[in-house]
């Protein structure tokens, strides 16, 4: 759909009406040195036909892979009904409406979303979403520091948390003088242990616990949550929402439950689409609701007692509190939340459980097949959800490249983020993978590995 905001004539009429001779004159209050002379590197506009052709070409570069990479973004089947409904005109906007209360349908959908997320995580309240999982963690850390009245500016983070989440959180909180301390993990089992944490128990505002962690391994969330509370910290849970169909929800971790729960909503009906956009979610306890960033939709009754929906707890938002707002996030990922809400409604608790169970079973089957090959073995003994770290007997980058040449994205090499796992890859299989897909992967990997055993690559050719 072409979108042309105003014609030359519109512009001329508007300038005439306000008494400016030209656009340049309109902006002449802005000193010349602050104005951007041009946009080097940004090409001239293209026609619709040319853009369509360009984008089809770019899309084709994505290729058609059999992907066994998870590492934070997961390939799940998305029922066709979801995006059919999401793209209806009534829903087709990323924004909560500016005249929010006039859009009862949108508010009701967000209210349903909040109710589902609160239920899934067993927490008392949910906001209407954040940008993505990693920035939601940044917000959770700021929230934990606020909950300590800003007096404790130190937060402990498991190093088994997704490396990009740690980087994003650091970018967000570093300028506020908040220190993130990374925790060691058990090299045998691949998770955090409370006994390793005691030397670090000096004052901190929160402990960040991923579940499952970046290695796919389940963290001992009950003792970790209790340990955090025993040391005056909040427990921040970073979870894959799909896993909660099987695992204990954060609201039930330990004796008192986690205090803040965040994660990325991508597994719930959002396509991989080269890395985004996705959406972040955040749920918490009632007692922390005033420290929670973002919008919250509430259900109420109007003057005549009829039920309706409204934005609530806005007093700490940007349009009222300005620079002192709980967050600079003034909008959210409404469109993706719409998709997730429809996904959850379509699947239901049982459907979600079946998807999660199938993904777990497929990953187990994959791990079994791959570990039957000589030299391939699991790096960690801990229980896992739908991802696993496998050590390979030869250079992981080369093996991944050889698999890619045969149409398979074999896994995510860990060397860059975990030097001690330089010989390891992170693999994932969801319900989208059939037994044939698993067999195909195992067979191709076997051929690649056996060729390398017979003729190890000598010098680097080329």
């Amino acid at each position, binding site marked *: 759909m072409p979108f042309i905001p105003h014609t030359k004539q519109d512009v001329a009429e508007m300038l005439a009406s306000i008494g400016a001779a030209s656009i340049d004159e309109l902006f002449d209050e802005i000193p010349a040195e602050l104005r951007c002379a041009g946009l080097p590197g940004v090409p001239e506009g293209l026609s619709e036909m040319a853009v369509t052709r360009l984008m089809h070409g770019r899309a084709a570069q994505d290729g058609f892979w059999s992907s066994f990479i998870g590492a934070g973004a997961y390939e799940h089947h998305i029922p066709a009904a979801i995006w059919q409904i999401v793209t209806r005109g009534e829903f087709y906007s990323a924004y909560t409406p500016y005249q929010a209360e006039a859009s009862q349908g949108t508010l009701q959908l967000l209210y349903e979303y909040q109710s589902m997320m609160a239920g899934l995580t067993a927490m008392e309240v949910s906001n209407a979403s954040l940008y993505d999982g990693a920035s939601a963690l940044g917000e959770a850390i700021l929230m934990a520091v606020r909950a300590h009245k800003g007096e404790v500016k130190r937060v402990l983070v498991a190093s088994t948390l997704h490396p990009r989440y740690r980087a994003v959180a650091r970018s967000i909180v570093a300028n506020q003088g908040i220190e993130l301390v990374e925790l060691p993990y058990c090299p045998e089992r691949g998770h955090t242990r409370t006994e390793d944490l005691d030397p670090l128990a000096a004052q901190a505002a929160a402990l960040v616990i991923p579940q499952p962690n970046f290695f796919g391994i389940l963290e001992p969330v009950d003792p970790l949550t209790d340990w955090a509370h025993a040391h005056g910290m909040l427990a921040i849970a970073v979870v894959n929402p799909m896993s909660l169909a099987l695992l204990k929800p954060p609201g039930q971790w330990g004796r008192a439950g986690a205090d803040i729960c965040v994660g990325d909503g991508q597994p719930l009906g959002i396509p991989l689409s080269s890395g985004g956009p996705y959406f972040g979610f955040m749920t918490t306890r009632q007692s922390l609701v005033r420290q929670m960033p973002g919008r919250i939709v509430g259900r109420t009754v109007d003057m005549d007692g009829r039920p309706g929906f409204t934005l609530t707890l806005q007093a700490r938002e940007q349009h009222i*509190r300005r620079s002192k707002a709980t967050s600079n996030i003034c909008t959210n990922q409404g469109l993706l939340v719409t998709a997730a809400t429809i996904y959850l409604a379509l699947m239901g608790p049982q459907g979600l459980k079946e998807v999660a169970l199938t993904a777990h079973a497929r990953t187990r089957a994959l791990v079994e097949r791959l570990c039957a090959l000589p030299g391939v073995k699991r790096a960690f003994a801990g229980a896992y959800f739908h991802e696993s770290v496998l050590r390979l007997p030869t250079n992981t980058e080369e093996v991944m490249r050889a698999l890619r040449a045969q149409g398979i994205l074999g896994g995510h090499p860990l060397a860059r983020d975990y030097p001690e796992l330089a010989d390891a890859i992170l693999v994932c299989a969801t319900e989208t993978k059939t037994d044939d897909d698993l067999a195909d992967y195992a067979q191709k990997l076997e051929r690649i590995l056996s060729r390398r055993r017979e003729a190890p690559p000598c010098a680097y050719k080329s």
Partner: protein
Amino acid sequence: MMNIPADLKYTNTHEWVRLESDGTVSVGITHHAQDLLGDMVFVENPTVGRQLAQHEECAVVESVKAASDVYAPVAGEVVAVNDAVEAAPESLNKAPYENWMFRLRPTDPTQLDGLLDAEAYRALVSAESH
């Protein structure tokens, strides 16, 4: 008519201050402040023991319309907070001068002399409303 008791001190950020017999000062928000903010829904007090600089942000009062900072009228240590106003924020609307929020032990009692008296505060409020 604006209620501004003659026996209290005031700040230009709309806190009232009462010197107690034990040398501490009680701090609350004025009738004018609660009138501007509207129905109170939440009060967040400082922690007891915290050292405050004069004019430091130390508490938040939240109404249905806005959340607003409360500033320390003088430097000092927080020696008590009024849990009753946290439990019933609407008490700040009903009786703003009976319901103090927190008490400070002033570091420098002469700072009290620099605060506004009732007459000066009345002039400030009437200037702001024109």
